[in-house]
Structure formats: structure tokens, C-alpha cells
């Protein structure tokens, strides 16, 4: 080691120094021309008055209730009586327009239209149509904005999910929550900025993988932290047996002294980052139990979310936990509820799935509202694509299935600067194509960033020689749904 350092010193002579210097100055100058911000102060140094957010944010936090597997829009929010009238008739080619199909129905010789097994009714001042399996959501309809004209590019679960979360169908890009963590940081330095909660319904499920909450090429502090249903919601956070909190403190103090010495001699900012991460984990040891404790919640909260919220790992429990994390300053809480992939047995399975999520989703809206937090928290409910208006497999009135359909589907958003009580976009009578106000995934992402005060075209990260954005090179803010 010593010898190496000595030789390293000897290898510097005047010629080398000068040639390096000229190259260095030249490339600095060039670099500053190409990247005008090169010599500006680093963003972290000036977080308080930094350039992000780009403008006054409407929402401070996001809770994303992802319905994994893709719930059918035709049994939730997109009411199409024509499908019931034409039950069993063939899907007209003029409507399908050569749309590609998945391998699951490509082999079907017929595409019989199938109408919703469930009844629809109109609710609230917006008179929005909502299926009978969402009675609680129907009660908060005037607080939500239903978008019936979402469309995506992917036709299978994994690419569609990845597309929704990262803006690209292939993996390795940062997830939306990671981008927001990168852009806005955490509000509460004792908790991660991006938390992930998983639950599973009884319906046909599709996997979720940690790549969906990846930091991609961003720094690993922006990665989503998964909270589990077990006694230790955050893994590896507890002290090992026999180590007291005081011991831990002493250990960290010594470690930080050593790290600081190292920092003084090398000046690598990663060392400082490491020290801070250890400190944050230490603070999380008290912050996490405080946040996840539901024994202090009033009874009426339990009744509102439904008693399922007392069973860790259920969707209802996750909704309640999401509210608790969010009110404690977690920037992005991502839920995934699995089991919405109804290729068959749809009337039976969807009722169960809806029962799992309906009450708690609506309760989350009410709960945020009664605390005065809904206007600064954006809540999103929806899956990765829609489902076909024709039947997959054998068709019966009370038993049918629907295949994947990327061309049109419904989601809802609430709070955080989104117009409440409106229905945006429209599909044709067959519920197959969008006829009004299409919203692409990138538009949806641009809108979320806009609500958080970020210009989606300006928040970029340079990686492998090009700048990346959540919205790639696309996306328009859907101004019509903003307050």
C-alpha cells in the first residue's frame, strides 16, 4: 500500500501534470458548455431553495393503490349496456381494427361480446356510473376523478406494470416513487421517502417483483422499502439479540468517527452518505414502531376501514398503514393488491376482489379528508391495463372471462389537486376504443409529477451518456383534470 502510494506520487511529473491539466481544463470548458449547470452548486447543498419543485406543488405526497392483475373496466367504472344487449354476438371487426391479442385468446375462433354480470348505478352529484360491487367507493364518488380513457402500450402484466411504474416496458429504469424521492427527497428524515406494501386477494393473481420499486440508475437511497406484514415490518432493522440501544449508539458513534477520518483523507461524499444512512436506520428503529402501531387508532377508524384492517398483510391493513406513513411524511406509498387477473370465473372472483378493496379504499379518502390531508395527498386507484369486451373461454351469463386489453381502461384519482367529482374521457359503446380525451401512461405520469410541482421534462438524470426522464420523451400534463 505504502509503496503504491509512493510510486503513484513519482509518476506525476511536470509534463504529465501539464498535459492532464490542459485536457482537464478543456473538457471542463466543453462540459460547461454542454451542461450549463456543471459549475452550479450541487442540489443537495441547497435543498431548501433548490430548483425542484419547479413550481408550487398541489400535492405533497402520493398513495398509489395499485390493483395488480388489471381489474376489468367493464365491471367497475365503464358502463356499457350495449354489451349486455349484444351478449354472445361477435365483436365487429370495425371495432377491433386488427388489434393484437395475447396468446391466450389469439387462437379463439370467435370473440363473443359479454356484458357485465353486475348492475350499475349512478351516484353523487357527478352521476358517475359505478358497479354494484363498489358500494363504498360509490359513496365517495364526489371526491374522486374517474378517468375512463387510460391506454397503454403493453399487453402483458409484467411489461405493463413496469411501464406504469417506470415509464418504460423493459426493466432497469427507476420507479415513479424513486423519481419523486430523487426529486423531492423525504419530508421526514426518519422514514424512507418511498415505501411499498403488498397484499393478495383470492382472485387469479400475478406476481409483483422488487424491480417494480427499484431505484434503477438513481442512488440506492431512492429504492422503495418494502414493509412486511410480519412482526418486523422492515427487515434487518431490529438490533440483534443481546444488543441494547445504548450499545448500538456507541457502536454507531465509533463507526462514524472512523468513517469521518476516512472522509477527511479521501473526501468521497459517498462516505458521508453512508454515515447518514446508518443514522437514519437508527432513527427508524423508533420511528417505524411508532408509525406502524395501530393500537392508538380510534375504534371508528377500524370500523371505517373494516375489521380486516386489523389483520396485518390485508389490503385494508395496508390502506390504514399507508395513511399513517403518508401523514408522517413518506413521499410515495405504493400498495399492490394482487388477484385481479380474471381470464375466467370473473363474476365470482371480481366480487371477492372488490370486497377486499372497496371499503378500505373509500375509507382512505374519507380519513385523509377528515384530517385535512386530502388536499395535499394524491390517491390513485387502478390496474395496469383493461380487459376485453369479448369473452375468453366459454361464455355463460354468470361465468365468463376477459383477456388483456391495453386500448382502454379506467382508473380513479383523488385529492392532491385533482378535480373531484368528475368523469374524464370516454370509450365507444363497445368499451373497446377511446373516443374522447385519451390519457397515455406517460400523460398520467407527467400529470402526477406536475401535481407534485415537477416539470416532467425538466427532472432528468444523466446515465450512460444520455438524460433520462420518467416520461421518456413523451407525456403531456392532463390539464383538464387539475383543480
Amino acid at each position, binding site marked *: 500500500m505504502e509503496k503504491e502510494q509512493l510510486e503513484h506520487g513519482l509518476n506525476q511529473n511536470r509534463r504529465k501534470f501539464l498535459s492532464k491539466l490542459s485536457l482537464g481544463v478543456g473538457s471542463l470548458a466543453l462540459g460547461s458548455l454542454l451542461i450549463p449547470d456543471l459549475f452550479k452548486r450541487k442540489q443537495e447543498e441547497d435543498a*431548501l*431553495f*433548490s*430548483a*425542484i*419543485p*419547479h*413550481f*408550487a*406543488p398541489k400535492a405533497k405526497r402520493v398513495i398509489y393503490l395499485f390493483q395488480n392483475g388489471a381489474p376489468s373496466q367493464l365491471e367497475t367504472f365503464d358502463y356499457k349496456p350495449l354489451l349486455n344487449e349484444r351478449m354472445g354476438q361477435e365483436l365487429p371487426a370495425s371495432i377491433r381494427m386488427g388489434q393484437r391479442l395475447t396468446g391466450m385468446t389469439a387462437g379463439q375462433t370467435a370473440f363473443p361480446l359479454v356484458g357485465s354480470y353486475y348492475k350499475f348505478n349512478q351516484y353523487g352529484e357527478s352521476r358517475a356510473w359505478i358497479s354494484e360491487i363498489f358500494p363504498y367507493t360509490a359513496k365517495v364518488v364526489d371526491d374522486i376523478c374517474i378517468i375512463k380513457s387510460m391506454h397503454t402500450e403493453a399487453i402483458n402484466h409484467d411489461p405493463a406494470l413496469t411501464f406504469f411504474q417506470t415509464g418504460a416496458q423493459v426493466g432497469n429504469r427507476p420507479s415513479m416513487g424513486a423519481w419523486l424521492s430523487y426529486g423531492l427527497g423525504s*419530508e*421526514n*428524515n*426518519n*422514514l424512507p421517502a418511498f415505501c411499498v406494501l403488498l397484499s393478495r386477494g383470492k382472485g387469479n393473481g400475478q406476481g409483483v417483483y422488487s424491480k417494480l420499486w427499484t431505484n434503477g440508475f438513481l442512488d440506492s437511497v431512492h429504492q422503495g422499502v418494502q414493509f412486511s406484514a410480519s412482526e418486523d415490518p422492515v427487515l434487518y432493522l431490529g438490533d440483534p439479540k443481546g444488543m441494547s440501544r445504548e450499545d448500538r449508539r456507541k457502536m454507531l458513534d465509533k463507526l462514524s468517527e472512523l468513517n469521518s477520518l476516512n472522509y477527511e483523507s479521501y473526501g468521497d461524499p459517498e462516505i458521508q452518505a453512508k454515515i447518514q444512512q446508518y443514522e437514519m436506520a437508527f*432513527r427508524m428503529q*423508533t*420511528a417505524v414502531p*411508532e408509525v406502524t402501531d*395501530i*393500537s*392508538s387508532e*380510534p*375504534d*371508528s377508524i*377500524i*370500523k*371505517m376501514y*373494516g*375489521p*380486516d384492517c*386489523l*389483520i396485518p398483510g390485508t389490503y385494508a391493513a395496508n390502506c390504514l398503514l399507508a395513511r399513517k406513513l403518508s*401523514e*408522517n*411524511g413518506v413521499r410515495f406509498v405504493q400498495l399492490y393488491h394482487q388477484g385481479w387477473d380474471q381470464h375466467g370465473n370473473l363474476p365470482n372472483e371480481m366480487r371477492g376482489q372488490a370486497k377486499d378493496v372497496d371499503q378500505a379504499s373509500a*375509507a382512505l379518502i*374519507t*380519513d385523509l*379528508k*377528515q*384530517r*385535512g390531508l386530502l388536499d395535499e395527498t394524491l390517491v390513485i386507484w387502478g390496474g395496469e391495463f383493461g380487459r376485453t369486451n369479448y369473452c375468453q373461454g366459454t361464455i355463460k351469463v354468470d361465468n365468463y372471462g376477459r383477456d388483456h386489453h391495453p386500448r382502454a381502461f379506467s382508473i380513479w384519482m383523488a385529492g392532491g389537486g385533482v378535480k373531484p367529482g368528475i368523469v374524464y374521457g370516454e370509450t365507444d359503446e363497445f368499451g373497446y376504443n377511446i373516443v374522447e380525451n385519451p390519457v397515455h401512461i406517460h400523460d398520467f405520469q407527467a400529470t402526477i409529477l406536475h401535481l407534485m*410541482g415537477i416539470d416532467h421534462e425538466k427532472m432528468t438524470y444523466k446515465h450512460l451518456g444520455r438524460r433520462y426522464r420518467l416520461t421518456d420523451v413523451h407525456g*403531456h400534463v392532463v*390539464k*383538464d383534470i*387539475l383543480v
Partner: protein
Amino acid sequence: MTENQRIIPILENVLIVLHGIVLILTIGQNYISLPVFLEVVGRMHPLLLHFPIVLLFLTGLLFWYPNWLGIQTKSALRFLFLASLVLTGLTVLAGLFLSAEGGYEEDLLFPHQWTGLGVFWTGTLWYFFWTKNKIQAAKFSSLFALALVLVAGHLGANITHGSDYLLAPLEKLEEKPEVPLEEALAFDHVIKPILEQKCISCHGPNKKKGELRLDEMEFFLTGGETGPALDNANWEKSLLLHRIFLPMEDEEHMPPKGKIQLTEQEIELLQAWVLDSARFDKKVNQYPQESTFFTLAKGLFDDKDRKTYDFPFADKGTIAKLNNEYRVIQAIYPDSPGLRVSFFGKSQFNANSLDELSKIKEQVVDLNLQNMPLKDADLDKLANFPNLETLNLNFTGINGSGLSSLTKLEHLQELSLSGNPLSEDAVSHLGKMQNLAELYVWNTQLPASQLTTLSASLPDTRVESGFEDDGRLYQLNAPVIESEKTIFQDKVQVTMKHPIGSVKVFYTLDNSTPDSSNHIVYEGPFFLEKSANLKARAFAQGWLGSPERQTVFLKSGIRPDKMNLTFPPNERYKGKGPETLFDLEKGDTEFTSGNWLGFKDTPFEITMEFDKPKDIENIAFSLFSAEGSYIFPPAKVEIWIADAGGNFQLLSSESPEMPTQIRESQLFLKEYPIQKSQVRKIKARLSPINPLPKWHPGAGQRGWVFVDEILIN
């Protein structure tokens, strides 16, 4: 030297020729028409002009300070003089060609042209005096020429970039007075700012490319060379839109390639405005609410719609010092002096930390204290933040008697008091806060009558009382039973938990269902010393009792001295062989864990032998079923015993009831009485189901039997 001597006369001659041409052009400007190819030369003017500027100043430098480079420069200076003058001449010539092309505002062009000519002429005089050694005259003309270079350069830049270009960055800092949305005009406040940024530098009063001006209403219809910008017979065909929507590669695309382009939103706004008959006098809010123009234009005003504050920015250093892990101070949005302070971590909270904020008390407009333990007396401290607009006091434990302090806060708009046990005092204090826009009082224990009073006394406030219990009774969820083991040797500790604090857990140990008449109240962890079938339920006021939770606790008994499996278990589920059955480790629903033995093609058949004959009461098999994974209860259970003689006798044979559908996977126990003394051997056979019933997806195939433990008592 010789080369220099040769080139000097050449340059001098060129200079004379240039003077001649320039003179002719200047005089005959309005009488001569130029061939088209000279326009190309003319357009090189913006390129050429850089040379004389640099060279003339260099010449000036060496003229005034000949020894500046420390070498003899006289002959070099002469060359420099001539080079800069020739280039000045060429630039002037090109400029004259360019001006002949037209399209420039006379008022701007005239001074530039004449100062430019002035540079050329005075520069030449300067050279002349210098060569004749008339130093005073040379010095004087040098100052004159160099000053003219600056003036001509600046005037020229004004033509190219617009006359406010140079100082524009400074002017930006001065905030222009902005109109609110209600008063904004569609053209003046939405469209014109876009044109000013992207179009008017070429199509304005200074520079009328293609004879088009876009700065005033009347010019839109007069238009330019190719026609009016707006077509009032057919708005869609308006040239203004046509040019914008041409592809980037098209020559006629506007703004031209290389200039700053219109953004997507600006294009949409322009389009929406033109299609709506390009109204100059219409107000923004006269457009329908749903129209594209209104929604887009409204967005522009929203962004400007930020609150402005009279108070100064807080010192950054002070803010940085006050910021810590549990008290986060942030600007409410970029460039706003207003601050938001949030407290986190109730175990770390101390109300005195509010006093530390006194240095930024003016700037704090948003204070978030939710979940922090506060006393009513602490609310006094909040009155020190005069500009507070948003205050979150949810679940802080106050009773509201201290809310009177908050009546001093004139700017308070949003107050959240949810989750605090408010007294009647609170209602009267709150009634005085007439400026409140939003008040949150959910879960404050205020009776409905008080809430009505409150709403009545605050007519302009949205009073949000939140979720109301509709009196519907919900069923509690079952308590959780925890213990280290369910099979134990001497004793085992049992703990029961329920997430709701007010819940009582009732339990029984005798297989009866706990209810109000028949239970033991759980008061803390206890020990079991005997086998027991523990059943527990949770009860609480205002709830239906929970379903029962059951756990079977087994005290292990006799361990056989020898055991032998007739058929080995399936390769995939072979555990640690027959040992697995007596290791007192209960398997869980993870049936691949190695705690389970699985059998499909052969029955589970075990022979257990005791060295000394034993008195045996019963035998129990701990089993697993998960029909979805083809694991069923055994189709048949047969038990044989052998006494000292060693001959097996069939003791019992049972065919347990089979499920009729796929159930959740479950652990269960099958217990069989034996009641025999002097037993030497026991043989048991549990046969897997074969074939699987018709309703099952795997109908016709073989099913599985899973065993993890055998208990003999």
C-alpha cells in the same frame, strides 16, 4: 521583412478600392439594384463583423502600448492596421448589401449604417496619420474610431436580437405587475406574451421579416408578403397556424429552425385562440370553463397565482441551523419566503422547541404538529407566529381551552383539530375565528349539537366532521395465540394478542366455545402444563365478539424405542426419515420445509416398538391438508397393536370424512383411543386418497398424505 513589404502595398491598394466601392454604394444606395448573388455576400455581414472588431482593438492596443509584447512591433502593427481596415471595409460592404435586401426598420438601421461607415472612415484616417507620424491626430482619431466600433456593434446587435436583448436578464428581476385571472384579456395577457417571447423579435416594430408584424391587432389582418396572418373567413386556414404546424424541416416552418421553438402548450393556446375567431378584446374567463383555451390559460395564471408575502426571506443559515431530523423546515414552494415547519417523532418532541423558531416566526405560514404531545398552555407559543395560515393540531391531546390564543392569528385559514377531546370552551373560542376557511373537527368528542353551533357561528368556514359511526356493529377479528411450541414436554408459555387496545380476550381450555357465561379472562401470559385445546375470542364494547381462534397444545408422551417405515416417503418430502415424526417440531403450512413426510404412491405405514411394554391411552397423528396442492386427509386410518406375544391385532379402522371442495390449507390432529396396557408394538397405516374425487382439478390422479408428528400417551 521582404514579404511584409510586398503585402503592405497590396493591402493599401485593396483598401483604396474598397473605399471607392463603399462611397459609390453609400451615395447611390437608392438608385442601384443589386444582383441576387450579392445577397449571399450581404448575409455574411453578421459573420464578418467579428473580425474588424477584434482586429481594431488589437491594433489600438499595440498603437497605444507598443512595448506591450516586449518586442519590436512597428512593422507588425502596420500589417495589423491594414488587415483590420480591409476587413472593416468588407464588412461595411456586406452590410450595405444586406440592408439593400430590405426588411429592416429604418430607425434602427440608419444609425448602425452610419456609425459603421464612420468606423471605416475614421479608422482609415487614423492609419493615415500614423504613417505620417502625426501622433496627436492619430491618437485622437484612434479614440474616435474605437468608440464608434462599440456604438456600431451595439446598434447592430439591437437589430438582430431586439433592442431590449442586452438588458433583458436584469429587467426580468423586476416583477411586472400581474393581472388576476378575472381581469386577464385573452390577447394581451395570454397570447401576446407568447408572441413577444418567440415571434416579435423578427416580426415586430424593429424587424419586419417578410413585412409581417405581430405586435398589434391591426397588423394581423394586413399581414406580410404572403398574405394576412389570420384568415377571418376560415380561421383554420390562417397562415399563422399553417406556419407553426409545418414540419420542422420545412423552410417556412415558424419559428425558423435554430430559433427557440414554441412549446406544446403555447401551440395549443395559439391554436385554440385562433380557432375561437382570434378575439382581441375577449377576457379569459369569458371562454367556457371546459374549453381548451380556458383550461390552458388558467394554468398560466395558477402558476402566477402564488401568494406574495410582505415579509423578507429568512436567513438560510438560520434555517439550516434550526432544521433537524425531527423538525423539518422547508420553503412552501420555490422562491417563496413562506416556510412550512413539520414535527416528526413524538418521543423526541418537546414543546419548547417551538420557542426556538422565534427567529423565523414571521416566515412560518404552515405548521404541522400532528401527533405531537401538546398541552393547551403550549398553544400560547403558537400565537407568536403572526403569519400562520395552516395549522395542523390533529391528535395532539389538547382539550381546546388554549385555543383562545389562536384568535390572534389573523391569517389562519386552515385549522385541523381532529382527534382531540375538545371541551365546550373550544367551541366558543373557535366561533371567534371568522377568517377560517377550513376547520377539521372529526373525532373531537363534541356532541352533534355543539358541532351544529360551531357551523352556525362560522358561516364562511367549511367545518369537516368526518366519518360518522352509523351504529352498525362489526365483528372483531380473532385474537392471536402465540407460544414457542404447540408440542411441549413439561410446560409451555402462552401469550394472546389483539390489535385493538380496548379488547378483552376470553378463552377456554376444555374445547368449549368461550362466551359470556363460560370463559377465563386473559390477563397476561400463562403456562400450560397439560395438553389442552385452547379456544379464544375477543370482545369489546360496541363490537360483535370475534370468531374463535383455536390452537391445540400437546404434551408429548412416550417415544418408541424402535420405529420402521414399511414404505419410504416420497423423495421430495422425506424429512429426516421416521425421526421427523418424534422430533417435537411442528411443521407449518410450508409443507416443503422438511418437517413433513409426504406419501402418494404408497401408504404411510409405521411400526413402533417398545423395549418394555407400555400402557398406552391414545395415539395422535398431526396432519396437513391442502386440497389445492392435492394434499387430502387420509382416506383410511388403520391401527394395529401387538402385546407381549407380538401378534398384531386390528384395533381400529376409520375412513375420515373427505372435503367436498378446495379449502384453505390447514393443520389438524387425528386422535385415536387405544386404552391398552402392556403394549409392545403399534402399527399404523394412513392411506392417501386414490383417485382424487371428480370435483377436483386433478380428478383421477392420486392424492397425498402429509404427516409431521406422532404423539403417544
